[in-house]
């Protein structure tokens, strides 16, 4: 069954700290792993994405770590800021996907000043 399991469900981090959100998948046909950020009342916005041919991708304060053998990937937010407070979704799409992103259940991040 195509599933993406995301944890934790909620996360509280102090300003300047590191936020870490984890996802795991089972379907080895997945080959695209994006992270989305969603603010209340808004649609999800692509934050960063990775393909399985690399183990890490960094864009600014956001880093995806990817472990193909363990079928896990994680989002690290360095120097977390109150403006990062949002819900984060990991997702996956299979090879040749025509749009069927499989989403994790989301992590509500609160960054305390």
């Amino acid at each position, binding site marked *: 069954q195509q599933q993406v399991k995301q944890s934790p469900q909620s996360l509280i981090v102090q300003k300047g700290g590191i936020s870490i959100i984890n996802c795991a998948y089972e379907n080895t046909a997945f*080959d*695209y792993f*994006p992270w*989305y950020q969603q603010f209340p*009342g*808004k*649609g*999800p*916005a*692509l934050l960063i*994405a990775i393909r399985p041919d690399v183990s890490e991708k960094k864009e600014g304060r956001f880093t995806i770590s990817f472990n193909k053998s363990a079928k896990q990937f994680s989002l690290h937010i360095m120097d977390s800021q109150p403006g990062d407070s949002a819900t984060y*979704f990991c997702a996956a*799409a299979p090879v040749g*996907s*025509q*749009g*069927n*992103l499989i*989403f*994790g*259940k*989301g992590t509500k991040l609160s960054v305390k000043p």
Partner: protein
Amino acid sequence: SAVISQKPSRDICQRGTSLTIQCQVDSQVTMMFWYRQQPGQSLTLIATANQGSEATYESGFVIDKFPISRPNLTFSTLTVSNMSPEDSSIYLCSVGGVGSYGYTFGSGTRLTVV
């Protein structure tokens, strides 16, 4: 990446009625996708809409309940028919694919059925 305009942004509807949600994209796209996000939940794909063909529905979603139109390469509508309170959700359209720009989402339509 594409820019998506979705409307209405929110609506409160009576049970038993229908609501049509519009999705306009600023560029031509082959496929458009409709998702549902129930309160506090993740996103679930409802259907994929190709221009010139019938939409493809995911398990648990049927055309009679969620008819979709795709008259051209920049526009699509999703209708939520015969609404019940259980249909209260955010409905989102999306375009894109695997690659640099990924999938782009509209800002969503927050539907409340009373």
